[in-house]
């Protein structure tokens, strides 16, 4: 009865199935239980004004069962990892880590909240798995061309000035990409970690 009234008044009702899904599958997802909706995270976030939903709203929507809206929201991928929210949350929720966990889960579920950031992040991780380190000269190239030759050339041209300036100021590594000595062992560890963690790869 109460629920009907709430719905009639246009208020969201609790719908626990998505929340359960988040608690079980998202890294740090369970921490959302602690949220008291104070909004300090939203007020502290440098990019909340360009997000479709603030972190506080995202947490509320998870409780309200808004699966589609949450997993496709750009908010979950616009975290700059500045840790303002994590520092200030009165309930000690590691908001940054929850947002990262949500982004990782959304991508695994086939959502693409922010395409460019996703492509860059994927290439970033691939390079770590392959080399154990990031090569700042090869990573952008791989990211530029991750959507194919023509978009790659376009993107490379747009940012060519940066590359040239970096090169001229000795802020680009000229040696070809090289892996760490323990790259093989590291890959074995990462394979195991991705199978063991709640996130998985």
């Amino acid at each position, binding site marked *: 009865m109460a629920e009907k009234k709430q719905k009639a008044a246009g208020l969201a009702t609790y719908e626990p199935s998505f929340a359960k899904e988040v608690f079980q599958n998202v890294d740090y997802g369970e921490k959302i239980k602690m949220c008291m909706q104070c909004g300090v995270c939203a007020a502290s976030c440098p990019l909340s004004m360009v997000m479709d939903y603030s972190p506080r709203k995202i947490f509320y929507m998870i409780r309200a069962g808004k699966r589609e809206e949450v997993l496709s929201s750009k908010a979950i991928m616009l975290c700059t990892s500045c840790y303002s929210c994590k520092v200030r949350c009165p309930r000690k929720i590691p908001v940054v880590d929850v947002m990262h966990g949500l982004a990782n889960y959304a991508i695994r579920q086939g959502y693409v909240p922010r395409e460019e950031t996703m492509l860059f992040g994927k290439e970033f991780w691939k390079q770590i798995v392959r080399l*154990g380190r990031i090569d700042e000269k090869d990573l952008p190239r791989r990211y530029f061309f991750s959507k194919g030759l023509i978009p790659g050339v376009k993107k490379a041209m747009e940012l060519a000035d940066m590359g040239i300036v970096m090169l001229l100021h000795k802020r*680009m590594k000229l040696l070809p990409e090289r892996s760490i000595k323990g790259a093989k062992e590291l890959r074995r*560890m990462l394979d195991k970690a991705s199978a063991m963690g709640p996130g998985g790869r």
Partner: protein
Amino acid sequence: MKYFLYWGCSLEASGSNYLASLRPVGEALGLEFEELEDWNCCGASISYIGANDLSIKVLNARNLALAEAQGGYDIVAPCSSCYIQMVKVNHEIQEDEGLKAKINEILREGGLNYTGSIRVRHVLDVLYHDVGTEVIKSHVKKGLKGLKVAGYVGCQTVRPYGEYDSVERPITHDAILAAIGAEPVKFPKKMRCCGSGIFLTEMEYCMKLVKDILEDAIAHGAAMISTVCPMCAMNLEAYQHRINKAFGTEFDIPVVYLTQLMAVAFGLDLRADAALDRNYIPPEVVLKEVIGH
């Protein structure tokens, strides 16, 4: 004092002026930096897109385990992103025996083990707490004579743990600037985010963040900006012309590393040690009274 220097991926390329100046400054101050052998990337702030949290923890645990195996000295990270990744994982391992066991089970694949004994430090922490401003002052040969500098702290340098400085009102960066004769300006955006690892891919949003920081620093009298993180430095310096184009601004403010300013103040070589020639926006103009040309 001896430390493992974990300089990270950026300092080998876009942050090469940081590494180039950190080494001679450290040497002048009697800090012995040894490279952590066969270190791997920390995962930075973007790996969550392709990896689960445990994988990122393992990346950092491997470096911590290597430090234990290679002698157990404190790890010094000049990059704020490396620093916070490693500090975070270290905390979590030290506070959670279950996690530690899980991670060690994984580290065994590479013949490694981590007990949790390593201390992870930011360069700012070592300079302020281990060396101290008095000792730094005693090395100054060419004081920066009231040069107005915005000591930009950024985010991951002190947040979220605040192990060596306040997370809301940090003082260490400004104290070192003052020790080398500069005049640190107060500016409210000193802790505001530059966009970090998503700047390149979310430029339309992040340019505004940097514009606000630059505007704030300049409005409070800064002639240059000092940073202690390669990502802050990159985002604040390399995109100024793009921001000018997008917002009709006229930014042309030099962005240097604190260690570059220290090298200048210590009277070290301006190219080989201070690496001033590696900055996109030449800092020499602002420094001309100090360096004499």
